[in-house]
């Protein structure tokens, strides 16, 4: 997408931002209708530029891990919204057959090594993917996406050090939405210039305005190109978490004025304005895109709702590989013991 002419590239960014935004809105609505598996849903509304701007430079063979707020990243990377929505609904037709849910989506085909519900837990996997790229002499890059909260986890620094030390094709992307649950970054870090931490480790450190997808894409493109050549990087994308931490959170720890101000950093609104002002698209052309995205995401909700819940016998499957000794169900054990 990054090699395309300006017109189609900017339009595609807009379309992708809109797809992420709309997908997340539908997830929120599905939750209200009781259609999601569980309430641990973390929406990335306001953060779409990080997902779209970085994944624009990723392709076949590349891999990535995400944090718990990772729907948008995977969608922008090319996920099928139907299977994503189905997974969030806990349906058999989901990416992980209804075993993972919102916080544990993965996909071998697209190199998604997994979303993670352990803050920082997915980060070191990209080091291993970097070692694989080196071993198999591929041109692949591996990207770890995580939040500002995870930027305070020790395993990140172990990973940053190894990436720099071994010149691995890795990129760390810190999506700085200003909050880790109810804790604003200045209450969790004495210095919030996280890109400086990266340069201290010998990584390329950069910061981008998450309100502007084109800026994110530009900086990410440079960093990914350098990473493929063995100069690992670290990108902070500044944005604002428009809504609560999870669906149930009404954000009582921050005031309305701050939220109103924060929501002005809206990559979707900016991109639409830009397309129209620069005469790349007309109002009605933008609306047409919006209509097609709405259709696509409505269809995803339908697909998810129609999905079947996994059958009970799936319970004991995939703890280990097929054909390997499997766990014995408790009732089976009891029956065997009492039969003797």
């Amino acid at each position, binding site marked *: 997408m990054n090699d395309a002419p300006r017109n189609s590239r900017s339009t595609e960014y807009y379309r992708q931002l809109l797809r992420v935004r709309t997908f997340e809105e539908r997830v929120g609505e599905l939750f209200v209708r009781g259609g999601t598996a569980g309430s641990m849903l973390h929406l990335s509304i306001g953060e779409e530029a990080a997902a779209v701007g970085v994944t624009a430079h990723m392709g076949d063979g590349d*891999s990535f*891990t995400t944090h718990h707020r990772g729907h948008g990243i995977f969608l922008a990377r090319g996920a099928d919204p139907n299977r994503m929505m189905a997974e969030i609904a806990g349906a058999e037709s*989901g*990416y*992980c*057959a*209804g*075993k*993972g849910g919102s916080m*544990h*989506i*993965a*996909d*071998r085909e697209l190199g998604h*090594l*997994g979303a*993670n519900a*352990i803050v920082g*837990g*997915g*980060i*070191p*996997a*990209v*080091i*291993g*993917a*970097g*070692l*694989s*790229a*080196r*071993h*198999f002499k591929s041109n692949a890059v*591996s990207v770890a996406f995580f939040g500002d909260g995870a930027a305070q986890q*020790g*395993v990140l620094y*172990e*990973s940053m*050090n*190894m990436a720099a*030390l*071994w010149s691995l094709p890795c990129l760390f992307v810190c999506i700085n939405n200003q909050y880790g649950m109810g804790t604003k970054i200045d209450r969790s870090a004495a210095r919030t210039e996280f890109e400086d931490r990266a340069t201290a480790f010998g990584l390329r450190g950069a910061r981008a305005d998450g309100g502007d997808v084109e800026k994110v894409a530009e900086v990410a493109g440079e960093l990914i190109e350098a990473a493929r050549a063995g100069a690992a990087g670290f990108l902070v994308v500044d944005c604002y978490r428009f809504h609560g931490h999870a669906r149930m959170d009404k954000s009582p720890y921050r005031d309305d004025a701050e939220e109103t101000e924060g929501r002005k950093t809206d990559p979707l609104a900016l991109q639409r304005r830009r397309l129209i002002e620069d005469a790349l698209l007309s109002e009605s052309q933008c609306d047409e895109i919006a209509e097609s995205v709405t259709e696509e995401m409505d269809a995803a909700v339908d697909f998810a709702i129609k999905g079947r819940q996994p059958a009970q016998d799936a319970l004991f*499957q*995939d*703890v*280990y*590989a*097929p054909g*390997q*000794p499997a*766990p014995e169900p408790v009732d089976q*054990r009891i029956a*065997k*013991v009492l039969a*003797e």
Partner: protein
Amino acid sequence: MSEPIEFTYRDALRLALRDAMTADSSIIVIGEEVGLYGGAYGVTKGLIDDFGPERLIDTPISEAGLVGAAVGAAMTGLRPVAELMYVDFIGLAMDQIANQAAKIRYMFGGQIGVPMLLRTQGGTGRSGAAQHSQSLEAWIMHTPGLRLAMPATVTDAYVLLRHALTLPDPTVFIEHKALYTQKGILDREQPADWGQAKVLRAGSDLTIVTYSRMVHFALEAAGSLADDGIDAEVIDLRTLNPLDRETIVASVAKTGRALVVTEDTLTAGVSAEIAAILQEEAFDWLEEPVIRLAGEDIPIPVAPELEAGSIPSPARIISTARKLMRR
């Protein structure tokens, strides 16, 4: 057939790694001091000369990072062997082991496996004190998704390690630091019989169920007990996941008495699981309660006499067996 050669446990492990790495170019070893230094206990000594620094990767002192890197490498086509210098350091890497490696296949609906091996060593015997002497196998055994092997013999060190390096799921391999210099005849062709316990000494009066270093203590004790007219059967579990319930139940069905011996601590330890299985599945044959001779529920002290007192000894296996026999 070539002459049988005597090997140490350590050399058998090294040979297993060398043979496996020769056969499978996707195997890498990643850990602290595994390359130039040759491993804190010398298991990987010289491998860097054969396979180079790209396959013997010396890491910074970053247990979570290196185990996490192994997870990612295993998900992307490599078969990493992560070495944790001491099992006592596993707390630093436990998230990567228990929340990541162990759960990835299941959470992701069976799409992605994690064929990695975590090699480490544990146990007492070198006065390593409280943070370098533990037996933490129960932590692993408690976690669905992980396999666990604990070889006691030279041949098992080789064949179980070779087999572990063919498995599709994350496997933990805990060596015993007091066994590295143990000598024995290595039979490389012996089938791995992964998941099968072995009756190392047949007996009719009681069954001693054990694994790792305690196998040797139990065999020694069984020899003395025989002089006393007590015929003990000794079972080496070899792998704790899969756990071979059939072999231990069949043995206790025959002897009617079970003594479970572990270096691991008593409370909620491996011995508790074995005792529960025997209570469930050998209930009708038990002449006496299942007895557990386990590590004491204390941190391991440094003074050699105290260290030795914190775990079972051949003498205590003998005295406990005699009590169990009401002798």
